């Protein structure tokens, strides 16, 4: 083995003329390494200047056909465009890729002279890549590590192709790959996935980097979440934050699970309780409160893009009602998904029929396939609509086979012109954009869906997808639940699962998916498991080792309050509820079925536009700043004659008590002694008691600590 590698190394730096030709083994690697098939050049979906290659050479047979068609001059090989263009023997928009005397050019020419075969008899085919070394963590600043890539052929031989491979790192702040296949620790602590490409193949290997001093390993907590998270932290020498205090915990728990703040009374009671299991008890209580369903409905309405432009008011009403009932009853997620995937009937009366929509034009099977990929498989299959996926094995064919699952559905209009009615038209097919032939429906990336004529393919597909052992569904749902609580998906973004974007904690994701599937897809079961972990209950206060950790869960990551939650929290704190003329049944903005109501606060705090399946924007913008500083609505609530402040001021409370109420109501904590002193000094010096307390309450509601859930 060793000797084979040594021999290979001697020839590895440059391509050599082989005895038996294989296009995929010998020509494709040259095109990939020279950059010919990258997205900006001939690998673009439409090719470049009339010559199209598959992206990164993933489809050698197609590339061979494109080359054989008009890039070869078999009679005079040296006049072939394949040889002349990259060597600038004729003008080439992409410039000189290699010189005429180069080994690359020699190999190309030799191949054409040999008759440019796709495959000579007995040639070995490139089967796979091996990237070494195995996982390790670089511990010194700027430490380097030599990467090696072996090509594995069908006849069992291996070749060192390191010098002709292309590398990329998914986190260059952690690891950078420099020329000569050298990975260098770039300063940040963490792990990076290195993708190596050779020919049409890619292989991913993960490595860590940490210059943090080794810490004495404390006993890792039990429980599957903490076990996996703490193991990774130990590997990277990251010290987790302290456990959150009761005040920090209760505020986070309420905002994450209910989307409301705990009241001052609830905070006081919880903090003063001496019950050792009080957190587990509170988690159980909170999971049973009705606001749970309100928040889940909002988050799922975002993902399902419930939209009055797309579904009309009648549609968002029925969608909302159905979602609210599903989550109020804690219906299992597999059943939930099947209801959506197989819905029929009129969308004004049957909520899940709004899985389809009608804006400008009715939804197409292609759109529903993209949506299904993102929502329930956790993959961005939509990329493959236009081109083969650049980072995955999925092809355009796979994508259209998924679209074919939905091709039998027809949207009829009912008597109400804006309503639609989903019906089945058994023989409708999706046509492949290239071949123009009907596409067979398949389980994603797997076998053909066999149905009897007239049978709804979606039913078979949904059954396959939501089976316990399905490789996509449980993982996608577990990852989403985790993201909603922890602020970042184990696979991030949650709908972008692919080999070159691995989970930060693969074993944990697998285990969570197993828990979910093993407990009847009970979302609350998984939430309870996560909420009770020490990992969820870390303080957001950082230490020196973890202040730059954004993905290993060593501290709680702050999340800006979602627009609706922020708006409702302001109403709750000020004691001035909002009312919504068009939706009198909505008592809080979280309960609004229509995402297009003209409400500036929701707009400026970036409610989900639902135009795409996207995470909410969570940044703080200058327009939000202006709204905090000068917003008329907020000021009206502060000054309201029947508001909380009026009650407090009229209740005979001392300044000290009022300050404490403000802190408890907004930040769910008591002020520190210093904070209280400062506020007391201000209150004492103020001319108007009402105004100074309005100003204090304003500042509390505009503070970082309020605007973020942490």
């Amino acid at each position: 083995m060793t000797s084979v590698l040594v021999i290979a190394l001697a020839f590895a730096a440059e391509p050599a003329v082989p005895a038996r030709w294989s296009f995929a083994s010998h020509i494709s690697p040259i095109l990939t390494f020279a950059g010919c098939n990258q997205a900006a050049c001939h690998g673009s979906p439409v090719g470049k200047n009339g010559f199209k290659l598959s992206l990164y050479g993933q489809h050698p047979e197609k590339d061979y056909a494109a080359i054989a068609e008009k890039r070869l001059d078999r009679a005079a090989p040296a006049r072939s465009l394949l040889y002349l263009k990259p060597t600038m023997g004729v003008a080439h928009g992409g410039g000189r890729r290699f010189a005429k005397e180069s080994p690359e050019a020699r190999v190309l020419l030799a191949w054409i002279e040999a008759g440019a075969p796709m495959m000579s008899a007995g040639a070995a085919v490139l089967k796979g890549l091996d990237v070494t070394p195995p996982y390790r963590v670089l511990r010194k600043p700027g430490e380097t590590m030599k990467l090696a890539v072996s090509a594995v052929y069908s006849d069992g031989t291996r070749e060192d192709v390191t010098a002709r491979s292309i590398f990329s790192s998914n986190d260059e702040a952690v690891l950078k790959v420099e020329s000569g296949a050298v990975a260098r620790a770039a300063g940040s602590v963490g792990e990076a996935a290195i993708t190596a490409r050779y020919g049409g193949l890619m292989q991913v290997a993960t490595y860590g980097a940490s210059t943090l001093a080794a810490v004495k390993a404390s006993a890792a907590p039990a429980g599957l979440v903490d076990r996996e998270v703490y193991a990774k932290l130990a590997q990277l020498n990251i010290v987790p934050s302290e456990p959150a205090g009761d005040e920090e915990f209760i505020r986070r728990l309420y905002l994450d699970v209910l989307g409301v703040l705990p009241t001052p009374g609830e905070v006081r009671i919880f903090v003063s309780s001496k019950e050792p299991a009080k957190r587990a008890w509170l988690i159980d209580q909170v999971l049973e409160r009705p606001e749970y369903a309100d928040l889940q409905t909002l988050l799922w309405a975002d993902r399902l893009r419930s939209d009055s432009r797309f579904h009309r008011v009648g549609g968002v009403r029925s969608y909302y009602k159905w979602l609210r009932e599903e989550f109020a009853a804690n219906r299992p997620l597999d059943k939930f998904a099947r209801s959506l995937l197989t819905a029929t009937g009129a969308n004004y009366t049957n909520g899940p029929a709004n899985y389809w929509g009608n804006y400008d034009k009715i939804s197409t099977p292609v759109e529903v396939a993209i949506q299904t990929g993102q929502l329930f498989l956790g993959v961005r299959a939509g990329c493959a609509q236009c081109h083969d996926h650049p980072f995955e094995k999925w092809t355009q064919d796979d994508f259209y086979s998924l679209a074919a699952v939905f091709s039998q559905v027809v949207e009829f209009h009912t008597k109400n012109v804006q309503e639609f009615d989903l019906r089945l038209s058994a023989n409708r097919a999706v046509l492949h954009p290239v071949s123009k032939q009907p596409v067979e429906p398949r389980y994603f990336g797997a076998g053909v869906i066999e149905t009897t004529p007239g049978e709804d393919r979606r039913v078979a597909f949904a059954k396959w997808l939501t089976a316990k052992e399905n490789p996509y569904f449980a993982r996608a749902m577990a990852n989403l639940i985790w993201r909603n609580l922890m602020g970042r998906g184990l696979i991030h973004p949650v709908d972008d699962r692919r080999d070159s974007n691995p989970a930060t904690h693969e074993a944990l994701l697998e285990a969570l998916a197993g828990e979910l599937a093993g407990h009847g897809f009970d979302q609350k079961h998984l939430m309870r498991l996560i909420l009770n972990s020490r990992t969820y209950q870390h303080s957001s206060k950082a230490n020196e080792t973890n202040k730059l950790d954004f993905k290993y869960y060593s501290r709680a990551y702050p999340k800006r309050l979602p627009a609706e939650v922020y708006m409702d929290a302001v109403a709750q704190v000020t004691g001035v509820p909002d009312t919504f003329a068009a939706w009198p049944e909505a008592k809080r903005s979280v309960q609004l079925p229509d995402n297009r109501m003209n409400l500036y606060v929701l707009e400026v705090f970036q409610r989900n536009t639902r135009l795409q399946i996207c995470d909410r924007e969570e940044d703080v913008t200058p327009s939000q700043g202006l709204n905090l500083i000068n917003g008329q609505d907020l000021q009206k609530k502060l000054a309201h004659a029947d508001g909380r402040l009026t009650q407090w001021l009229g209740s005979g409370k001392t300044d000290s008590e009022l300050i404490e109420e403000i802190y408890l109501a907004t930040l769910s904590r008591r002020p520190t002694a210093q904070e209280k002193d400062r506020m007391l000094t201000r209150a004492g010096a103020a001319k108007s008691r009402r105004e100074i307390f309005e100003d204090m309450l304003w500042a509390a509601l505009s503070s970082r600590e309020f605007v973020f859930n942490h």
Partner: protein
Amino acid sequence: MLHRDCDGARRRDFLRLGMLGFAGRSLPELLAAQEAAKRGKSLIFLWLGGGAGQLDTYDMKPDSASDIRGEFKPISTSADGIQMCELMPHTARVANRLTILRSLTSADLGSHERSSRYLQTGVLPVPNMDFASFGSMYTKMLGLKQAMPPFVGVQRPIERGYGGGFLGPQYDPFLAGDPNEKEYRVRDLLPPEGVSLDRLERRREILDEFNRTWRAVESDAKVAGYAPALEQAYRMVFTPEVRDAFDIEKEPAKLRDAYGRTQVGQGLLLARRLVERGVKAVSVWMGGWDTHADNFKSLREKLMPPMDQGFGNLIADLDDRGLLDSTLVVQVGEFGRTPRVNKSAGRDHWPKAFSAVLAGGGVKRGVIVGATDANASEVKDRPITVEDFSATIFTALGVNINAVNHTAEGRPISVVNGGKPVREALA
């Protein structure tokens, strides 16, 4: 520390505030920001949402059949050989300062939404991501940090594609509302009723105290955005120049009348006022051009007069002030309209061949580029793709069209997606 009496304060005060370290920025920093603002041109982007008909605006075909040419007649303009619709007398007067592109050609994308994304970004829309609008991309490439928001949107955006897209929401336009409203104010730029500037200042001091305590996770990217956003907001509230820039009441009544007391007229006037004061890109959105029925009546009564008056006077006003050479004005919509008038006296969507107008910084004056066939249904000469259009805009603005930005996932996106600038249009 804060300057209180902001009303009527002039540049001197602005500098003094800088010396006091107002909003955490030193005088040299402020001056550098002002220098940056002077560098580079400004962009005013007038969007005709719904799609204006080429046959009823800049590409009339008086010799075609009556169900093609429609109800309007062409008139002569200040530019030799350029004619345009009789409903555009103001624009005709400044035609010698325009570059009219008559051969724009887009793809049939089937919806306003997708076509609007295409024409506002210059990049064919894809399902999984949003590209950046011209104004967002331009201000990103300038890389400014200033009290004045770099990119402002006037009226309400009509279709997706107007914002920062993959560049991030910090490149979205700052939405300034409708300056034609009575007692127009930018949303939240002035203190709420019953709260004085003194009190705003006291509130800020208390806010600082609240924020001082919570230092747990300042390095966190999201939390880290809070302080600069608040600072930019305070800078806008307390910088007289910013409030002044949006104070359209300060424009002479005669000039306001000249632009027209309409949404688009006052929007364009505000746009001029803003670019004069350091805003680098302004989008003005005008809707209503989707005239599937009663095309001629709508154009005559509702659409053309306010647009023409605003646009024509904007060009004249910019030129009078010597700003036209440093301001690129663009007028376009998501597509043109069908040559043949339909049964409802309307015209339908027509992405195949339509017109756009450029004026000012970087482009020629009094020029027509491209031509369509006898019915304005196909491009006959010099097709201009949406990518070419985009390349022309960015080249006129002085931006390297091959510069690359990256999406969050690391996908490289160049400023222009493969188009070539229309040399015939560039000065």
